[in-house]
C-alpha cells in the first residue's frame, strides 16, 4: 500500500475532520473553558467544507484511494458536504443547549466530529473492512454522545440499549463480512465481490452473508424490525445529538447502503428473483414506513414522535434503494436529493425542539407547545415550514425529495404498489405533524413562555428554513449537484 500525496489531498476533508477532532480533544484539556474547543471544531468544519468544494471543482472522475479501500467520487463528496454541514449545525445548536442545561463537556464537540468522520468513511468505503471501521467509529461516538447528558437517566438508558443492540448488529456486520469473504474466495473489496457475485449467488452461505451485512446496515438506518433502539435512544439523547443521529448518521448509513447495494451486491442474480434483496427490501420499506407512521400517530412526546417519523423516512428512503436495485436511471441522484432535503429539515426541526426548552423544563410534550405562535411567531412559522417539509408538502425540499424518489420508483412497474403505499403513508403522517402546528397556533398556552436567546440556534434555524424552501422552489442546483454535475445556473 502506497500513500501518495494526491491521495492525501483527495481525502483531505475526512482527514481534516478526524485531525481537528483529535486537536479539539487535546485543546479542551489544556485551554480554559469550553469555547476554544468549540471554535476549533467549527473552524474545522468550515475548512473541511472548503476542501470538499475544492475537490468537487478539481476533478470529475472518481479516484480509488489506498488500493481500493476508499473512493473519492461525486456521490461521496456530496454526502461529505451534507455530513459536515450537519456536524456544523449540531455544534452550533449543541453549545447553547448544553450551556442552558448545564452539562457542557468539551469532548462533546470532538465526538461530533468523530461521528462525522466515521460517517464520511462509510460513504467513501469500497471495502468491507473500511465500511466496518467507518460504521464502528460513527457508532462508538454516537453511543457516547447519547450518554453525554449524565444527569438524565433516560440518556443513560437509551445509550445502553443503543450500545447493546448496536454491538449485536455489528456482530452481524462482521459475520456477514466473514461469510462473503469465505464464499467469494477471499474478496472484501466491492469490485471484487461484484466480479464473483454471479457465481457466488448460487451459494446460500454467500446470500446469507449478504443479508447479514444488509441487516447490520438496516439497523443503522432504523428499519423495521431492527429499529427498536431508535425511539429510546432518540428520546434519551440530548436533543442536538438526536438531530445528528436523525440526519448525519442516517445519511451516512444510507450512503453506505447505496454503495454496498449499488456495486458489491448489484448483480441481478443477487438483487432480483425471490431471494433477491429488492423484494425483501421492498417489504421492509413498506413495513418500516407504515410502522413508523402508525406508531407516531399517538405519541405525546415530540422527540419520540420525531423518532418514529425518522423511522418512517427510512422507509421512504428504502424505496429509492429498491429502485436502485431495479437499475432505474436516476435512482441514486434522487436518493441524494432526498437525503439533502431530509437532513436540512431534520436539523431544523431538532433545533426548534432544542430551543423551546429551559433548564429543568424541556417542554417535550405536544401540549407544552401550545400557544407558541404567540410568543415566538418566527420560530413557530419556521417549525411549520419544516414540519410541512417532513410531511412532503410543496413548496418545500421534503416534497421534491419525495417527488424525485417516487418518480424514480414509478419507472419500474413492479414498484407502483410501493409508491402508492408511500403516498398514503405520507398522507397519514400529515396528521401527526399537524398536531404540533395545531398546538402552536390554535391552543392557548398552558405555561408561560420564556425563550432564551441564542444566535447559534437562530442561524441554524434560519439557514435550514431557507434551504428547505429554496429546495422546494428552485430544486435545480441541488439536483444538478446530486447528479454529479457542476451547478451551471443561478
Amino acid at each position: 500500500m502506497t500513500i501518495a500525496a494526491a491521495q492525501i489531498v483527495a481525502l483531505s476533508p475526512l482527514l481534516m475532520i478526524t485531525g481537528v477532532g483529535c486537536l479539539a480533544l487535546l485543546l479542551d484539556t489544556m485551554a480554559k473553558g469550553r469555547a476554544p474547543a468549540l471554535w476549533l471544531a467549527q473552524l474545522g468544519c468550515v475548512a473541511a467544507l472548503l476542501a470538499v468544494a475544492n475537490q468537487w471543482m478539481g476533478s470529475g472522475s472518481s479516484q480509488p484511494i489506498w488500493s481500493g479501500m476508499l473512493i473519492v467520487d461525486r456521490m461521496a463528496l456530496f454526502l461529505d458536504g451534507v455530513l459536515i454541514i450537519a456536524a456544523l449545525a449540531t455544534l452550533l445548536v449543541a453549545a447553547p443547549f448544553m450551556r442552558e442545561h448545564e452539562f457542557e463537556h468539551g469532548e462533546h464537540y470532538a465526538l461530533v466530529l468523530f461521528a462525522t468522520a466515521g460517517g464520511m468513511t462509510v460513504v467513501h468505503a469500497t471495502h468491507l473492512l473500511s465500511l466496518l471501521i467507518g460504521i464502528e467509529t460513527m457508532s462508538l461516538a454516537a453511543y457516547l454522545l447519547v450518554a453525554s447528558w449524565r444527569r438524565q437517566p433516560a440518556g443513560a438508558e437509551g445509550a445502553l440499549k443503543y450500545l447493546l443492540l448496536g454491538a449485536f448488529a455489528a456482530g452481524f456486520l462482521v459475520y456477514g463480512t466473514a461469510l462473503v469473504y469465505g464464499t467469494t474466495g477471499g474478496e472484501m473489496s466491492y469490485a471484487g465481490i461484484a466480479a464473483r457475485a454471479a457465481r457466488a449467488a448460487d451459494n446460500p452461505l454467500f446470500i446469507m452473508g449478504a443479508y447479514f451485512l444488509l441487516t447490520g446496515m438496516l439497523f443503522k438506518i432504523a428499519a423495521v424490525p431492527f429499529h427498536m433502539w431508535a425511539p429510546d435512544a432518540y428520546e434519551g439523547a440530548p436533543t442536538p445529538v438526536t438531530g445528528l443521529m436523525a440526519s448525519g448518521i442516517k445519511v451516512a448509513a444510507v450512503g453506505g447502503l447505496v454503495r454496498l447495494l449499488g456495486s458489491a451486491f448489484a448483480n441481478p442474480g443477487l438483487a432480483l428473483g425471490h431471494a433477491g434483496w429488492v423484494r425483501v427490501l421492498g417489504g421492509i420499506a413498506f413495513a418500516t414506513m407504515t410502522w413508523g407512521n402508525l406508531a407516531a400517530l399517538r405519541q405525546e412526546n415530540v422527540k419520540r414522535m420525531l423518532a418514529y417519523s425518522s423511522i418512517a423516512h427510512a422507509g421512504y428512503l428504502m424505496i429509492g434503494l429498491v429502485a436502485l436495485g431495479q437499475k432505474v436511471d436516476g435512482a441514486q441522484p434522487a436518493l441524494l436529493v432526498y437525503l439533502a432535503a431530509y437532513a436540512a429539515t431534520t436539523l431544523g426541526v431538532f433545533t426548534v425542539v432544542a430551543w423551546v426548552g429551559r433548564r429543568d423544563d424541556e417542554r417535550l410534550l405536544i401540549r407544552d407547545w401550545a400557544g407558541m405562535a404567540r410568543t415566538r411567531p418566527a420560530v413557530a412559522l419556521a417549525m411549520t415550514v419544516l414540519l410541512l417539509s417532513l410531511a412532503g408538502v410543496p413548496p418545500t425540499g421534503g416534497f421534491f425529495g419525495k417527488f424525485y424518489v417516487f418518480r424514480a420508483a414509478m419507472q419500474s412497474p413492479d414498484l407502483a404498489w410501493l409508491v402508492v403505499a408511500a403516498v398514503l403513508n405520507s398522507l397519514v403522517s400529515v396528521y401527526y405533524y399537524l398536531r404540533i402546528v395545531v398546538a402552536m397556533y390554535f391552543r392557548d398556552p398552558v405555561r408561560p413562555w420564556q425563550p432564551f436567546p441564542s444566535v447559534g440556534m437562530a442561524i441554524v434555524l434560519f439557514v435550514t428554513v431557507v434551504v428547505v424552501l429554496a429546495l422546494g422552489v428552485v430544486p435545480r442546483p441541488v439536483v444538478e449537484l446530486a447528479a454529479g454535475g457542476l451547478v451551471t445556473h443561478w
Partner: protein
Amino acid sequence: MPSELRMIPLLPLLSAAYLILFGRRHSRESVHRIACLAVGAAFLVSADVFFFWFPILYQSNGLTDLVGTWLASGDLQVDLALRMDALSGLMCLMVTFVGTLIHIYSTGYLAHEQDYARFFAYLNLFCGAMLLLVLGDSLPVMFVGWEGVGLCSYLLIGFWYGEAANASAGKKAFITNRVGDLGFLIGMFLLFRAVGTLDIPVLVDTARAGSPSLTAALWWGQPVAFWAALFLFMGAVGKSAQIPLYVWLPDAMAGPTPVSALIHAATMVTAGVYMVARLGALYLLAPVALAIVAGVGALTALFAAVIALGQNDFKKVLAYSTISQLGFMFVGVGTGNFAGGIFHLFTHAFFKAGLFLCAGSVMHAMAGSGDITRMGGLAQKLPFTTWVFRVCWLAICGVPIFSGFFSKDAIVAGAFATEVFGPRLHWVGPTLGAGLLVAALGTAFYMSRLYCLVFTGECRADLDTRAHLHESPFAMVGPLLVLGLGALLAGVMGLPPALSRSHGDLIGRWLATALGRQPEVSRALQWRVMATSALIALAGIGLAWRFFGGGVREPARRFTAAWPHFTAAVRGKFFIDEIYDWLVVRPLRGLSRVFFLVVDRILIDKLLVGGWTVLVDTAGRLLRLVQVGDVQRYLAIFAIGLAALVYVMARPVAPSEVKVRIEGRSATVDLTEGKAAVDKLEYGFDFDGDGREDRVGAAANANWLYPRPGHYQLRIRIKDPRWNTSRTIARTIDIP
C-alpha cells in the same frame, strides 16, 4: 440584453416584501416614500428601457431577459424569462405610470388609515405581479402574475375585512376568478400537448406558420387552436369580468377607491384583453373562437351599459361602465383588430382611473358616501375634481378630440371592416359594430346621468355633510390632473389615418410587429364611423340632459312610471346575482352540506377516524408489548425479524399466473409470465395427479398429451436447489 428588465417587477416586489415584514416599524412618511419610490423607479426603468431600445422594440421580437431555468421536468422546460416588446413595453409604461399616480393619490386618500403599511405592501405586490404578468415570456410565468394579481385583488377588496360584506366581496372575486383560471390552465395544457412548449414567442411563431399541430381537429371537428383559444378566453372572461363571470367586479367596489381605480379599472381587469392580443396569432387560426370573443364582448358591452343606467351608487355605475368598456376591448381583439383593442385599453386606463379617482375625491368630500341621489351641485365645491371629471366623462362618452373618441372609433370601424371571420361568418363584424354603437349611446347616457346628478343642480345632501364639503388635498388632486391630461391627449397615439396621413395610427404601427396583420379600414368608412359616433355621443348626452340636467326631471319620472318593470329589472341588475345564487351557490351549498354530513361526519369522523383510533389503539397496545424497554425483548424482535426475513427470502414465490393452454388432448403449462427467470429454479410437473412427476427440469413450461378425455389434477412443484425449499401449486384440467 438588458438585465435591468428583471428590475421592473422586482422593485415593487421587494418593496412589498420589506413593507410586509418591517412596515409596521416605520412612520407613515417612510412607508409611502418606500412604496411610491419603488413603483416610480419601476416606471423610470421601464421608460429607460423602452425609449432607449425603441427602434429595436418595435421592429423585432423585443428584448429578452433570461433570469434562469425555473422548471425542468421531462419535456417541460420553463425559463423564468421576461420579454419587452412594443406591446409589453407599452403595457409596462402604462401600469407603472398609472400605478405611481395612484400610489401618490393613496397617500392622501388613506391618510387616516390605521393599517397603512399593509395597504401599500399589497399595492406594491400588485404592481409587481401585474408587471410579471405583462413581461412574462411564457404562459406559466404569465400565469404566476395572473394569479398574483388575483390574490392582491382579493386582499385589497377585503382590505377592510372587519365588515363581513367586504370580506365576502373579496371571496366572491377570488372564487369567480378561479372558475376562469381553470380554463386558463386547461388552455395551457392543450397548448403544451399540441406544441410541446409554453414559450409565448414560439407559440406565436407556430401559430403564424399555421402549423398542423395547431390546426389538427381535436374535438367536434374543431382544431386544437380553437379549444386552446376558447379555454384561455375562459380565463380572460373571469379576470376581465365578462358575461357570465362579470358578477364579482361590481362587488369588488367594496375595496378602497384607489384600488378600484388601479386594479379594477386600469390594469388587472385588462389582463384578459392583453392575453388575447398577446396570443392573437393563435386566435386568428380559429375564426369561431374569435367570433365568440367578439360576441361575448359586444353582449357584455351592451348588457353592462343597460345595467349602469339604473345604478345609484357612484362606484357601481363606474364598475358597470368598466365591464362595458372591457366588452368594447374584447370586440376589438375579437375582430382581429388587436391594436384597436390595446389602444382602447390604453386610453381607458387614463379616463377610467381618472373617473374613479374623482369618485374617490367626491366620496372623500361626502364623508364616504357614494349615493348619487344625495349629491348634486358639487361643481362649485370641488372645482379641480369637476374639471377632471368633465374631461374623463367626455372622453368615455366619445366626444370628438377626447381620447375615448378615437379609440372607440378604432374598434367600431375595425368591426365593420374586419375579414377575419371568413366568408361564412362575414355578417358577424357589422352586427357587432352596430351593437357597439348602441352600447356607445348607452354609455353616453349613463355617464351624463352620473355627471348631472353629481355635479349639477342643487345639493341634496344633509346639512352636516354639506357643511364639510371640501376639495381634496394636493396629493389627491395632483394625480387627478395628470390623469385628466392623459384622458384628453392619449388619443393622439391612434388618430385615424383619415385625419392625419403622417401621424395617423401611431400605435398600430408600433405594434405591427408584435401583433401582426390588422384589418384595413377604408377612409370612407373611417369618416362615416367618426361622424356617426360623434352624433351618437352628443345624442346620448343631450338625452341625459333632458332627463337629469340639474336633478331628476319630469321625462325621467314619466319614463319610470311608464316602464315600471323594466326600470325595476335594471335597478335589480337583471337579478343575475340572485339567479346565480339559485342555480349555483345554493345547490353547491346543499351539496357541501350533504358531503359534510355524510362524508365528513359519518365516513371520516365516525368510520375513518374512529376506525383509525381502534386500529391505532390495538396497534399501540401490540407495539407496547414489544416496545416495553427491555433489551432482551428488542434482541428477540431483531432475531425473529431476521429469521422471518430469511424464511420469506428462501422460499420460491408462486408465479402470479399459471397459463394452461389446451388443444385437443394436449395441455401446455407455462409459468414464465413472459419474463426470463432470474433464480435457477427446478420445476416438477405432475399432469395426471398420480403422484409421479411427469416432467422435471429447469424449464418453467411443459406439455403433456392425455390418453383419454377426463378431469385431471395438475400439480406443479417449484424448488430452489440452493436452499432445498419448495412450493407446490395445484390446478384442475378438463380434457374434452
